[in-house]
């Protein structure tokens, strides 16, 4: 794929804002291939030469350099036109199918939300998400500022809490959004690896508040869904990262699985394994705001094989019961019967039904594809036992932005 093109015949043309530019020549100096030139009036980028390597972006003292217009390739702004400008032209409509979201990402997102019948509306009070600021062609480069094993020594799985720092690169995220990781290198056929999506596990203001960082919950994949040994490319790459290592990141993605922000809003969260990442992000967001006393309750159903396999088990136990109602389900603890999240949901059926009725309660489900069926069956059963009609309720929940399911 040619570098600046994001779709057939469409160019993301690099332009310099003549109203902000101070003609300091820094960009021309820093361009490695002489794509930038100037006359007595303006500094301009030659679309025939520029490969969007972005070497000029950071050195520009004004920010004038960071301007882009989508244009039909055949009618890219010429140097003569650019020399003549006093202001940048507005973005004109370019005929094209939404080319921005990478195909990989669209495919995974469609699969993940298939269980609820496609993406639903976000909560009405969700913050506006930024999406797709960084593409596979132009990923953001983050650095690893932490990589910590969450699961106990004896656990069968290696689940890690990985913190990525974006330094001075803009990467604004909301709880529930995902980011894409591009493992370096190529696959057996010599093609670049596919993008892998991970839900962020930290709240919007960062794992370390007010620093530009996000946390991920990553399980090292050593077997496939059927238990056959397989080495996950991206998860092993991430789990093995040393501190300070650079990582190519794309995104953020996701405009639906977002938390409500209005006072009095409640969350019903159902997850297994690393599906806890968005729940942890939302819980942490609320925890940091406890002092604001905004009202609303949190209820969590969390399933894993055993306590030592449960990411964030320790910190969760420290949260006060009046803040969050936590229900753990363990399926493989010696001497105890197997319990799954759907069993717990049924046990707490009255409370769950009350929450489904509550206009201010928003439901989030995240985990392996295999939990989807059990959980929806449990919800259906709870409804029928409490005078609710699941099949009528579900579309209303979805349209009202109150039901969000992501499984993989």
């Amino acid at each position, binding site marked *: 794929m040619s570098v600046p093109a994001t779709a057939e015949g469409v160019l993301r043309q690099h332009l310099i804002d003549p109203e902000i530019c*101070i003609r*300091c020549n820094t960009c021309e100096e820093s361009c490695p291939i002489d794509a930038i030139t100037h006359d007595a009036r303006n500094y301009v980028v030659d679309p025939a030469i520029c490969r969007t390597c972005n070497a000029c972006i950071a*050195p520009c*003292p004004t920010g004038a350099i960071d301007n882009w217009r989508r244009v039909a390739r055949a009618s890219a702004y010429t140097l003569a036109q650019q020399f003549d400008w006093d202001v940048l032209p507005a973005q004109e409509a370019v005929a094209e199918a939404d080319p921005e979201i990478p195909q990989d990402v669209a495919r995974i997102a469609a699969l993940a939300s298939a269980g609820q019948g496609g993406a639903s509306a976000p909560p009405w009070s969700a913050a506006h998400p930024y999406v797709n600021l960084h593409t596979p062609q132009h990923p953001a480069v983050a650095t690893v500022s932490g990589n910590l094993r969450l699961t106990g020594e004896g656990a069968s799985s290696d689940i890690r809490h990985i913190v990525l720092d974006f*330094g001075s690169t803009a990467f604004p995220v909301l709880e529930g959004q995902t980011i894409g990781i591009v493992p370096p290198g190529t696959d057996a056929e010599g093609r670049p690896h596919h993008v892998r999506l991970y839900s962020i596990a930290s709240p919007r203001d960062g794992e370390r508040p007010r620093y530009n960082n996000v946390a991920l919950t990553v399980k090292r994949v050593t077997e496939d869904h059927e238990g056959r040994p397989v080495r996950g490319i991206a998860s092993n790459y991430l789990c093995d990262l040393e501190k300070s290592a650079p990582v190519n990141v794309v995104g953020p993605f996701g405009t639906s699985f977002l938390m409500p922000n209005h006072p009095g809003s409640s969350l019903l969260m159902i997850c297994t394994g690393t599906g806890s990442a968005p729940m942890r992000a939302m819980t942490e967001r609320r925890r940091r705001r406890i002092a604001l006393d905004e009202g609303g309750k949190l209820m969590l159903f969390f399933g894993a094989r055993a306590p030592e396999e449960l990411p964030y088990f320790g910190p969760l136990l420290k949260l006060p019961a009046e803040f969050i109602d936590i229900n753990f389900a363990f399926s493989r603890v010696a001497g105890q019967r197997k319990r799954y999240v759907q069993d717990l949901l049924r046990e707490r059926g009255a409370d769950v039904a009350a929450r489904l009725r509550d206009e201010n309660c928003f439901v989030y489900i995240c985990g392996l594809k295999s939990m989807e069926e059990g959980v929806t069956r449990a919800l259906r059963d709870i409804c029928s036992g409490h005078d609710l009609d699941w099949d009528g309720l579900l579309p209303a929940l979805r349209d009202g932005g109150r039901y969000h399911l992501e499984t993989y």
Partner: protein
Amino acid sequence: MSGIDYSEKIPNNVNLAGDRTLQRALEHWQPNFLQWWAEMGPDGSQDFDVYLRTAVSVEPSGWANFDHVKMPDYRWGVFMTPADGERRIRFGEHLGEPAWQDVPGEHRANLRRIIVTQGDTEPASVEQQRHLGLTCPSQYDLRNLFQVNVEEGRHLWAMVYLLHRHFGRDGREEAEALLGRRSGDTDNPRILGAFNERTPDWLAFFMFTYFTDRDGKFQLCALAESGFDPLARTTRFMLTEEAHHMFVGESGVSRIVQRTCAVMNELKTDDVAALRASGVIDLPTIQRYLNFHFAVTIDLFGADQSSNAATFYSAGLKGRFEEGKRDDDHRLQGATYLVQDIADGRVIEREAPMLNALNEVLRDDYIRDSIGGVNRWNRVIEKAGLPFRLAAPHKAFNRKIGTFAKARVSPDGRVIDEAEWARHEREWLPTSEDRAFVASLMGRVVAPGKFANWIAPPAIGINRQPVDFEYVRFN
């Protein structure tokens, strides 16, 4: 090796650790520098966390790294554009010869003088600006002031490195003296006139960073051509930082003009008293500040006829701006240049040997460049639909150095007598009332996203951060 090692006492990309004597000498100078910074650096900025740009390598991708830095802990270091080993001298008698990695004995005194003169301006401007933080119009501007200041400090380091590394005991003494002189001190002033003027208010600061830091750009560009390769590589990297300083000036003045125009349109008036009463700086006052800073700055280029300039050029010590883009013989023997003079009561042009007129050549390049920005300010006024236009004064106006120093010349270039000068001086140069009025507007505004009434917010924040970002944490 272009990566910068921040774990060393003095961050550098010049392999300081490989020269113990030099390293010790600089480590000896370092506490004196820090002492100078504590005494003469930004007033009352102790313990502030400031969102600053720090170089982590001299590659384009590495020299603009943004983070909050505790003010006195900024890591000043020694950075140079990497040597390419192939560089050849592009002008003068040594045209085509390999650039020198060491100082040639016969040019030692001249090179030292060039480096000391350049180095002296760096701490001088920090001294001139040290009280401005107390009257900043916003957090954004305060951050920009500190960025300018720490980088001027770093430019001092760059020159001191050259003095220590290449000029032995003389160099070390000169490096000490750079910390000894004080801007505006009658007994031990800074070397150049403009660097002994006061920078009493933010309009003066923005004019200074627009005009006087642009002089820095042209001097650095001329030195980046030098046959003495370490000087060329040092100044090449300094230029990348200098651009931000000019940005602060150009956008600062532009935002003041924008705000004034908005109020002029709101009140539908150009009445100076009415505008001043509503707390903005009237355009004629801005023009008078412009006149002052323009004239003071073009004096910095030196006498219009200078045998020193000829020597520096022919010897390969200091080139012209964009030497590589000029298509003459780069030796200039026999070449001529049109210079201005005064004869029969008016400004005339005459031909002079170009070698002797090289200060004038650089000054004219500078004037062309600085007028571009003045025109961009005018576009702000034009956009507001107002008829006023700012203009750079004639190059003979209010000069203190060179042929025009003894004459009185109006901003439009007429030679006038003392009486006419006296009648109009208050229209052409800032009066004490102007300065007092501007000073009266200078109150400190530091709430994130808030701006003083006399200046518009910037179009975009620093490093894509929002305008109301917390650029400074006061702790």
